[in-house]
């Protein structure tokens, strides 16, 4: 999952390197290598601005993942094991919502939370809370749609045995969620990847306020346009490293669990 902002940054850096094209009034960069060297310097020095942005990013995305797991996974399990009118339509909608553009989610949440909006009295627009809400809305359908698929496959295998034991529907959904927990880890990671890398929703509802709602992706977008490429690139490197480390850790846990529990 390549965050869009990183792609944009890459194009920009390439422009600098190959065409020496830099926006007027911006400090001239000597290219990717220099920027990368300075970026690693910032990371190694634990630059406080960088650390703040990284910590806020982690907090917002992790909170969104926890919330959307709590909503999306049981929802997926419910849709997988129950029959109700309109179930097929619900599955199509869930799958379609996986491709929800983050700016659209940002816009809708912005309209809801803005002063004139129905939830304007909460006064949480341009706060991390608003960002968590937007990201939760963004990734919950992904969690639900993907977990529905995994639970439905599991249900095929377990159905006769669980019905034979007389397990109730609600119990069945929880049993499957727990029994397929190692497969669901991948889904949670996919959700985290989407939350951590999206820029549209947090930009709109957070406002990218320095020290308050600035996260890695919005900072990268901003610093790139300002021409502070080392900071932007440093953030990009950290963002990739976090996603990579989480995936690697999850892989190790899943493989160990598979060996141990079968």
């Amino acid at each position, binding site marked *: 999952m390549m965050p869009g902002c990183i792609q944009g940054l890459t194009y920009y850096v390439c422009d600098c390197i190959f065409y020496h094209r830099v926006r007027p009034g911006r400090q001239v960069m000597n290219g990717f290598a220099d920027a990368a060297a300075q970026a690693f310097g910032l990371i190694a020095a634990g630059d406080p601005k960088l650390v703040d942005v990284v910590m806020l990013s982690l907090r917002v995305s992790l909170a969104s993942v926890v919330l959307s797991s709590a909503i999306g996974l049981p929802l997926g399990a419910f849709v997988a094991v129950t029959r109700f009118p309109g179930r097929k339509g619900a599955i199509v909608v869930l799958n379609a919502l996986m491709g929800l553009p983050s700016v659209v989610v940002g816009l809708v949440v912005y309209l809801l939370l803005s002063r004139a909006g129905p939830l304007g009295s909460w006064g949480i627009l341009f706060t991390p809370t608003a960002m968590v809400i937007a990201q939760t809305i963004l990734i919950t359908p992904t969690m639900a749609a993907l977990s529905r698929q995994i639970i439905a496959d599991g249900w095929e295998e377990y159905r006769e045995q669980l*019905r*034979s*034991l*007389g397990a109730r529907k609600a119990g069945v959904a929880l049993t499957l969620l727990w029994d397929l927990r*190692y497969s669901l880890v991948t889904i949670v990671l996919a959700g985290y990847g989407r939350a951590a890398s999206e820029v549209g929703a947090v930009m709109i509802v957070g406002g990218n306020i320095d020290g308050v709602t600035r996260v890695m992706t919005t900072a990268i977008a901003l610093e790139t346009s300002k021409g502070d490429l080392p900071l932007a690139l440093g953030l990009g490197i950290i963002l990739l490293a976090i996603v990579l480390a989480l995936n690697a850790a999850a892989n190790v846990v899943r493989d160990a669990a598979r060996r141990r529990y*079968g």
Partner: protein
Amino acid sequence: MNPMDMRPPLSLLPLHLEDVVFDVGQRRILHGITLALDAGSRTMIIGPNGAGKSVLLRLCHGLLEPTSGRVAWSAPEPPHAPRRQAMVFQRPVLLRRSALANIVYALKCSGVPAPARFGRALSALSRVGLGALADRPARVLSGGEQQRLALARAWALDPEVLFLDEPTASLDPGAAHEIERIVGAMHAAGTKIVMVTHNMGQARRLGDEVLFLHQGRLVERAPAERFFRNPATPEAARFLEGELPW
């Protein structure tokens, strides 16, 4: 505590099937089966592939609904009451938790109060010789051990009727022998056995009576000893000739 104390007084058996038909799409799998299964005896269901044996078992156990006809137990089975019948499948489906926890889960589903679950599960495990593996994750047990665990899970529920669908089909002779021993012990403890098998030796060893199915019809029903010595119908005779080459 003796689990028999909690059993409602009415017996599930006999089970009556009245003109049971089962279709899948346009294809008729069972053509009007009428029979009664009484308590006590061990019933073996045999017949060639596609005769409808497994479907018949699932209809009896309530995993499938008949297209027409009636499957009626002598005592009512309310939809959410603890089940008084159990089934063991060809490939056991075990949960990703310990052997013991698998049985505890089944006891929970069947409404056994929490304090009684652990002891009952442990005693069922030791009856099938898995007492030492109680804490082992169920899914990493060998095929034979997994099937014994599935039997222990069924036994812990103390069912009146146990349905088995080719429980030894994918096991080696030693493991299969162990399964037969356990099924025999459950029968001795008072459980009605209804078993589908492709293994004629097994049907002879375990069976009191035989239901012979052929192309979705119950062609012959006879005491096992008589059936194997002298089948009454040409279909059964041909089937046994093919299955028993001696």
